[in-house]
């Protein structure tokens, strides 16, 4: 008996595709919500440094909660829904995103911000046109880690019925059948690697000034 039964893969192609799609969707949404929450937090922490410690502490504590425990804790409130897995996944992106956005913005050279101010930029425009572009490499580094972590974490949410490729693991375990296990394994790794490369490529495209420069 071969390790992978290709006829099974062929028969379940549609299903596997849908699970891959859900995996991508969950990852994307979790990152999106993560950024939506982490961003204002980070801006606040940069502007009011006193805010940084508590924010870091809170996101840090959330990050340390075991994932399975967190999902189970959420079930009484949100049930076995996509909301449960999304809330959990989003929470795990917060620490990394928050920390990297703060570090990125803090890394903007003081004289550059000062110059922007002196030339007559408003606070908002300065942030969008000067500080964020310069912070982008550090922020993107955080997004990449968060993305890869989330892609791995999504498989865990299969246990509450929302797992994307994680469903393949459950199927494999239940049926004592290696094919779905391997397919799930290979696809989730391939997904993580391609998303990571994609984000790296996006950064390269967005930061022409960094090219050919030692970092």
């Amino acid at each position, binding site marked *: 008996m071969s390790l992978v039964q290709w006829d099974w893969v062929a028969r379940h192609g549609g299903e596997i595709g849908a699970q891959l799609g859900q995996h991508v969707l969950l990852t994307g949404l979790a990152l999106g919500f993560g950024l939506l929450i982490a961003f204002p937090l980070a801006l606040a922490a940069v502007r009011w440094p006193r805010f940084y410690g508590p924010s870091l502490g809170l996101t840090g504590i959330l990050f340390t909660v075991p994932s399975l425990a967190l999902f189970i804790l959420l079930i009484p409130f949100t049930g076995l829904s996509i909301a449960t897995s999304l809330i959990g996944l989003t929470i795990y992106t917060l620490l990394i995103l928050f920390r990297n956005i703060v570090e990125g913005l803090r890394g903007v*050279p003081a*004289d*550059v911000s*000062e*110059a*922007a*101010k*002196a*030339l*007559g*930029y*408003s606070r908002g*425009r300065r942030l969008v046109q*000067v500080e964020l*572009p*310069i912070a982008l490499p550090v922020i993107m580094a955080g997004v990449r880690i968060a993305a890869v972590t989330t892609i791995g974490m999504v498989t865990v949410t299969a246990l509450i019925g929302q797992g994307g490729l994680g469903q393949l693991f459950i199927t494999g375990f239940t049926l004592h059948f290696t094919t779905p296990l391997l397919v799930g394994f290979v696809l989730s790794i391939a997904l993580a690697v391609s998303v990571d490369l994609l984000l790296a490529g996006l950064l390269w495209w967005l*930061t022409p*000034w960094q090219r050919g*420069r030692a970092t």
Partner: protein
Amino acid sequence: MITFEQVTKRYGDQTVAVDGLDLTIASGELTVLVGPSGCGKTTTLRMINRLEPASAGRIAIDDRAIDSLDAMTLRRGIGYVMQHSGLFPHRSVFDNIATVPRLLGWKKPAVQERVHRLIETVGLSPSLATRYPHQLSGGQQQRVGVARALAADPPILLMDEPFAAVDPIVRRRLQDELLDLQARLQKTIVFVTHDIDEAIRLGDRIAIFAVGGRLAQFDTPRNLLAAPADDFVADFLGRDRELKRLALLDVRQAPRMHAPPLVDNDRAVPEAKESTVHDWVVVHDNAGRLLGWRHRGASALQPFTDTVSPTTALDRVLAAALRSPIGVVPVVDDDGCLDGLIGPAELRKALA
């Protein structure tokens, strides 16, 4: 014209950076604020475009209080150049220079034309337009910084130790270029430095600040050097103050040696009639052109290694006189004619 009336800047409750400053900066002049670190010169500069709010007093530009304008509007009308260029690392040279025109909403062709003109104005090669700041040398970065500050043609230019971070040779060139630029553009420039030599070289007027934010003296370089108001100023100007004064004067402002021992080579002069005060004579031809010098009574003519012109600065005249074997240096005018001799005694009179 920028006026400070009783302007004070306090940090927290204790530290006084600027103390009751009264200062009028004339339009079209290059005014240098100079002093030791912690004297409030940079704070004074930064109060003009409200990077630092004044704690008390009034600052006005052409009699209009700067607080009456919105800070962003005010800043877009004032050029600002800082020590480490402060260029935007993520923008090309072109885009850096285009910053303020774009903030002001200029049309694309106008921006383009302006930027290309400025690249030329500050002496950069047009091929640098697409480079990023990290691909430029320190001197080039400062030039881009100046171009960016001049982009929207502001009447006022604030420069905060703009040349402090480049090496001395480049600094000297940038200073020359700034003087050249100023001669053409006639901006109101406020320039901060801790280097008194730079201040003397560049300033139409110099404001010397003492620690504690006190304005110690405000005058032209010549007047400062000639009459320092107190010991602090004298000390800050340095013990070689007289040499600095000489550098600001030229041969036209110095007397010539009285009764110089000159000899017209075409006329035979009996040795007895030669001056006995000096043991040398300077020889010229009958058209007044300098031929050289010789020992009294000797016939071997020796050439001068140095001559000076009417526009030579007096510090160079001093150097030439010290090098001269006879202790004085001949002045030769534009027509090549001998126009007297200058030595240390004449330089002293020029300073008197």
